[in-house]
């Protein structure tokens, strides 16, 4: 297993993303047609059999959300595509939007049909001007050809999609903050429950899924849920887009089946570390993911394995860091990111990130004591366990993981600190 498994990226490179004709020539929108000819319950059965889990980070079972929305009788219902992708190290959603926009639209249409939703939004990160342009063109073309709007493919099925763009804050990718932002409010999360499938956009039932998740929907209709579930591992089915970056020869997006080892991804697909340097550590998933040492690279990509880090790291970034870097410099960058991005709504994240940054800085500056180590440890746990949304819950993941795998670095730094001089 050393090659990519091109499923949702199969058309990329073969089609001009800005041409709907190209997409149609490559069997585009035929899976929508197929879905429209199926009974809704059949579609749900396929999703259940596929055991597809969300690709936006949390890895929530897709079929559960689809079914929950389908069961809601309140109308209108919404399908929202989360294309905020604000997490450093992630760029696979942009890749999909810029290279295969119609497949995302097709996925949203299938979702809408299966759940009887009538309106859709794609929430695109503000910085993604090019992706926004391409998606907009794709929507316009799809509408012109009758794939969006009223009575799609002459069926009693109507659905349309609008683009919204983010104000450039990371937390707007969190599903509730995103909905608030579409509603024109400040991007801050809401109290859960209720969840979006019952009370979502404008208070209505809403399905919210990641770009990659939605782009997978046509493949599931194509292959059938059971066949899809045969790709990957027992616990994680299908393929995953990996955003590979950092100190690596071939940066880019790769589609791999679950179960591939990180070492294979980095060495076989990414070509390894350039300039004769050695891998020191990698960060998984993005800023919110764990930092793990080189010796763990044989671990395979799998939801269950990732969950061992008490973090939700399914977005699929791998950031390679070579031996020239100091773990505390990396941590400082990550802490500063969260200290800036916290929305300020709940106490542990609003206040905690600043304390975390300050404590990490003590380690960066050779100014740390045992007390700081203890404080950092307990702060990280409290933030992880008590924050209101995923941002605060995962902000300390890098710290928690390094406290585990690089503990010696902390202890050394305390020893090397010049605290004694002050005594």
């Amino acid at each position, binding site marked *: 297993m050393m090659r990519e498994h091109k499923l949702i990226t199969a058309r990329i490179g073969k089609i001009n993303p800005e041409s709907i004709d190209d997409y149609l020539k490559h069997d585009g929108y035929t899976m929508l047609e197929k879905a429209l000819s199926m009974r809704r319950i059949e579609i749900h059965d396929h999703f259940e059999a596929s055991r597809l889990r969300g690709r936006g980070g949390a890895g929530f079972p897709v079929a559960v959300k689809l079914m929950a929305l389908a069961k809601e009788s309140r109308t209108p219902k919404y399908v929202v595509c989360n294309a905020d992708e604000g997490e450093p190290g992630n760029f696979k959603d942009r890749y999909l939007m810029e290279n295969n926009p119609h497949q995302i639209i097709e996925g949203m249409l299938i979702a809408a049909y299966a759940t009887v939703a009538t309106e859709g939004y794609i929430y695109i990160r503000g910085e993604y001007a090019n992706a926004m342009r391409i998606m907009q063109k794709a929507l316009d073309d799809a509408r012109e050809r009758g794939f969006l709007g009223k009575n799609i493919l002459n069926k009693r099925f109507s659905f349309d999609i609008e683009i919204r763009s983010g104000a450039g*804050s990371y937390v707007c990718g969190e599903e509730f903050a995103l909905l608030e932002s579409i509603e024109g409010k400040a991007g801050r999360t809401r109290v859960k429950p209720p969840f979006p499938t019952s009370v979502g956009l404008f208070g209505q039932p809403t399905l919210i899924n990641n770009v990659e998740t939605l782009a997978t929907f046509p493949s599931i209709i194509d292959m059938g849920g059971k066949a899809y579930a045969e790709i990957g591992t027992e616990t994680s089915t299908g393929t995953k887009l990996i955003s590979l970056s950092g100190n690596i020869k071939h940066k880019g997006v790769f589609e791999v089946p679950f179960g591939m080892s990180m070492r294979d991804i980095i060495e076989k697909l990414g070509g390894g570390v350039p300039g004769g340097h050695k891998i020191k550590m990698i960060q998984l998933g993005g800023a919110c993911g764990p930092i793990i040492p080189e010796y763990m690279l044989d671990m395979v990509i799998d939801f269950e394995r990732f969950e061992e880090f008490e973090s939700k790291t399914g977005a699929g970034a791998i950031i390679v860091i070579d031996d020239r870097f100091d773990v505390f410099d990396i941590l400082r960058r990550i802490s500063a990111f969260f*200290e800036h991005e916290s929305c300020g709504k709940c106490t542990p994240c609003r206040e905690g990130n600043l*304390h975390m940054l300050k404590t990490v800085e003590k380690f960066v500056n050779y100014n740390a004591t045992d007390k700081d180590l203890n404080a950092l440890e307990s*702060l990280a746990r409290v933030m992880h366990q008590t924050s*209101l949304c995923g941002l605060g819950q995962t902000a300390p993941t890098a710290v928690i993981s390094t406290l585990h795998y690089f503990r010696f670095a902390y202890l050394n730094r305390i020893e090397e600190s010049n605290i004694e001089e002050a005594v």
Partner: protein
Amino acid sequence: MAKIKINNMPLNVPDGITILEAAKENNFNIPTLCYYPDLDIKSDCRVCVVEVKGHKGLSTSCSTPIYDGMEIKINSPRAQNARKAIVEMMLANHDANCTACVRNMNCELQRLAESLGIHENRFDTVLQEKAIEQSNPSIVRNANRCIKCGRCVDVCKTVQGMSVLETAGRSHDAQVSPAYGKELKDVFCTYCGQCSAVCPVGAIMEKDHTHNVWDALDNGDKHVIVQVAPAIRVSLGEELNLPLGSIVTGKMVAALKMLGFDRVFDTNFTADLTIIEEGHELIGRLKERGKLPLITSCCPGWINYCEQEFPDLIDHLSSCKSPQQMFGSLAKTYYAQREGINPDDIYVVSVMPCTAKKFEAERPEMRVNGKDPDVDAVLTTRELAKMIKQMGIDFDNLREQKFDKPDEVTSGAAAIFGATGGVMEAALRSVKEILEERPLEKLDFDTVRGTDGIREAEVEISGQTHHVAVAHTLANARTLAQKVREGGTPYSFIEIMACPGGCVGGGGQPYGTTSERSRERIYSIYQVDRLTKIRKSHDNAAVMNLYSNYLGDPSGEKAHELLHTHYVNRRKK
């Protein structure tokens, strides 16, 4: 019913309630901070976290519904440590100089820190000093003490429909303030003070007048008199640890005398006067087909709102001053003359359930001599309680005393001013009896009582049906005012109070006021009414004497000069 376990104790609780509610029902008190009974569940502060078996993180008990088989640990070491760390974080970004704070010994954060056993803070302070806002007559905001619980934002938005306050900024720069960092005087604030009543700490509070009052009491050249609003006697006790709804009129008078006031008067007296004036205004407008509906004007929170957002309805407002201001102008004229005291030497203090009354007292219209305010200082219920505590008065053991003459005579109609619908009922008692020229058969107008946000009723007067309406909270006031603005409403008379429940739920009332507590106070107020001998304002002989000895006719020239006012369009751009 669901079977759950709290701290290993098996319990049966109703389905659908939260962990917090289930715990409370079974006498477990989970600490909270952003939670407030009448407001939205925010679950922002995270103080109420508990451990739930099977949940990965800790769960906030205010927002997590229980389910059958749930096992909850309130005080697991993990939950306790988290709670403690959260409060320590708050304190690290808080000006925790408690001894210099109005909330000292009456602060939810302080109590929480104490009950969690926080004696030192594992976090270094990160407070960045911000300027204190005190540029308006009613409300002071000290951002250095704000813990961003969001209660004030919520009450202003959802209860009052004002949305004056908001959370701006991200991360630890998040600030609760009016939009764009403006000051309250520059936005649509009505000074209703609901924000100050729900704030758990000393971050939004009434402007302190206790110092001015202590100074005046200490000044031998000043004749210091005090008036007490109808709603205080049923709420002051709460702030002094007496049971909810205690009627403490006599002890309150005794305490005020001990504080050194030269005379202690009852605002109920001028409430009766207000009814006579407003009643005649209504009768006049009914007879002469004047501007209807007539809308009450005794609530300055509502007046501020009307002048700012419904200036086109100013003609509907009764021109009567509020009872507080009628008292003030009479004190500096009639009373001064009667007692032979130079009005400049009289210092008038009022005790009000209200922060907007501080603004009202400073209005330029409220100066009979054209330069000095008629009411020199306004204390909230909380401020009076504080002065009583500062003086070390053993309130509960005081022997009851009576108000000074002539205000000892007041009607039950005046007493009910403190409850939503009370002014309406008081006015109806007088207007109906005066117009029909025969004694009322029934004194209680039950249809205008209650606590529904907007209540409408029909009243028969001399065979004619009159429609009236009552609203409380500014959100409901907006709905009703909007209807009047659109025209075609059948009403002849409308009562509006800015605060939930009326003055019993005023912005200056004891901390911890909730709709449930307000209902208890309303109950006590009607109790006062029932126990009063005179129950109609126009039966108050002392008030009628005032007319014959000094004011002349109701609505007459002198009455107009002293007891009426006008309003201004204060629409802000």
